[in-house]
């Protein structure tokens, strides 16, 4: 027997400190970037300060998620940590034990099976995909996917190295920190929940965005060929989106909310235009959630969902598509029908 799955609850933890874009750009040695806020749509991002790191963001997002959930920590069957960054105690990057093991201990999820995955900005959606596999096959009843991204330290490296507006480190300035968690559960409702999820890795583009730890400085660095990766992502995603729509028996215009990975406003809008040309129709709304958070790596989709849930923008039975682009190049789509989770976030309609 195969079970259906649904997102049961979502939680978020954002760092306290805000860093606005003009303040960030003023640190550049050579003032070479104009209209950054206009192009990216990012006016500020949250950045970790003392006492905050990937671990604290993940743990507090998990606790926030549980506060909206029907589950107690002791009822969680599985925890998958999905972050790129695993900073604990500041900028100390943990390799072993798995982050999920420590999160389990911190939230008191005694019986949970744990492991970490890492799949660049596709991390949380990869976690959702794996959770769905385990739940559908009856191995577990629920799973918490969680990610805390302390990734803004990459900006520090970029600030020192950007000399022109063509720098490969320019995309680093879009990054912000944030934590998100979601509980995926077995659905009893035949109508709502996850309809389809599918991913592919187009490894011929794997060098277009690379990130690693610095050798001689704290934190990491990232280099991106933004133009090429954006073009590849849009072109290559059209057949994948078509396939996802076919498998869910939906047309593009029946998608009420399209939530792409949040990189920059101009990329999202130009992608939307190319989709319009390819599909001949457009989804209800395309969600852009960059203004106050920036690109928070693996957590962007869930930050956007959380914000719109709390703003009571979603309605039960609406079709939502989470569209994933991540370095690798990973392209994937998750389509789900919004369930009664909206009521737990205060929606009364």
């Amino acid at each position, binding site marked *: 027997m195969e079970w259906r799955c649904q997102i049961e609850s979502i939680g978020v933890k954002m760092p306290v400190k805000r860093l606005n874009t003009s303040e960030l750009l003023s640190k550049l040695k050579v003032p070479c970037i104009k209209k950054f806020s206009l192009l990216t749509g990012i006016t500020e991002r949250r950045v970790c300060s003392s006492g905050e790191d990937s671990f604290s963001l993940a743990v507090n997002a998990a606790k926030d998620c549980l506060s909206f959930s029907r589950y107690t920590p002791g009822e969680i069957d599985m925890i998958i940590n999905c972050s790129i960054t695993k900073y*604990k105690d500041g900028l100390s990057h943990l390799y072993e034990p798995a982050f999920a093991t420590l999160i389990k201990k911190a939230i008191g999820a005694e019986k949970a099976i744990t492991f970490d995955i890492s799949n660049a900005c596709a991390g949380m959606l990869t976690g959702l995909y794996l959770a769905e596999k385990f739940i559908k096959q009856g191995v577990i009843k629920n799973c918490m996917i969680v990610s805390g991204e302390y990734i803004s330290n990459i900006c520090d490296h970029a600030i020192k190295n950007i000399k022109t507006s063509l720098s490969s480190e320019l995309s680093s300035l879009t990054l912000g920190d944030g934590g998100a968690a979601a509980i995926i559960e077995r659905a009893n409702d035949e109508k709502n929940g996850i309809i389809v999820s599918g991913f592919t890795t187009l490894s011929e583009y794997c060098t277009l965005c690379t990130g690693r*730890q610095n050798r001689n400085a704290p934190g990491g660095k990232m280099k991106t060929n933004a133009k090429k990766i954006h073009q590849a992502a849009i072109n290559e995603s059209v057949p994948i989106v078509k396939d996802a729509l076919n498998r869910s028996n939906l047309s593009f215009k029946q998608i009420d909310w399209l939530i792409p990975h949040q990189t920059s406003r101009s990329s999202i809008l130009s992608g939307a235009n190319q989709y319009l040309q390819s599909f001949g129709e457009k989804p209800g709304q395309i969600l852009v959630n960059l203004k106050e958070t920036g690109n928070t790596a693996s957590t962007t989709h869930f930050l956007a969902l959380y914000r719109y849930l709390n703003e009571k923008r979603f309605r039960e039975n609406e079709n939502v598509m989470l569209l994933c682009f991540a*370095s690798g190049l990973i392209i994937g789509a998750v389509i789900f029908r919004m369930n009664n989770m909206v009521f737990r976030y205060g929606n009364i309609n």
Partner: protein
Amino acid sequence: MGTLIKMVSVARPRINFLRGDSINLTARAASQCLREAGIDPHDLGILINTGIYRYKNTGEPAIAALIQEKIASRNTDRNGSRNSGNTFSFDLNNGGCGLLTGIEIINRMIIHDEISYGMIATGDSEPFPGLSEEFSFNAAAGAVILSYSNDSPGFSMFRTYNYPEYSGEFESCTCFNKTGRNGTGRNILKVMQKTSYTDFCVKCAVKSLYAFLDESGKTLDDIDLIIPSQSPHGFTGRMKSLLGLKDSLVELPDGGRKVFHTAGPAFALKKVWDDKRFRNSKNIIFLTVGSGISISITLYVN
């Protein structure tokens, strides 16, 4: 009828004193595994990398994507054409238990007919040679291909046992060490293993093994072969003496202070694969131990 192991391959640096690059080593093991199994890279539905200590501490893309590209490129060289297929790849980290967690995920996808072939590739090497403290793992990589079989049950039961009370026994992280003036310094990989870690690993493994056997309705006498983790140092030897086993628990030759980490079970599997003990055994247990402390066990039936 079940998921079976189609092929296993391992790789070490070609020149002994070289410390190796985990990505190239793992890609070499993966390519060899595909070649020996007669499978094209684009036929892989899933590729999971479970190595932990990676070349230059690469964070993104996933190492699995880099391995996927290297094995696809090697295939292109051979055939003169390229088919990127529909492989989905990602990294999984679960300490020394990663290989078995990866096998469990792929097993579920194969038995539910979502994919035909899946590969778990794993490899470790010192990220920046010379920039680590107490890094005691061999540069080594392994790859295992799984596929569906109508003939044998293959993997039948997966269990994971966690002992979070021992989570402080083993930790590894990179920390910035200020060494020079003006705040200059290095990111150093520190591996911190308490002297009691091996004892706790053995204690947890034995307890978990008996719990697993009870649940599966088998006794230790029913098991023909145990393929265990090869780290921490001394783990296999103590398991053997505590369980009163001789050759049925696969142990690699003692290489001194350095041990095989995430690829250890693949090296142990390769040993019994080559001497045909694997195919001649009926009930086989894979037992992995990882920091946390986590114990993963599965039963494989030929």
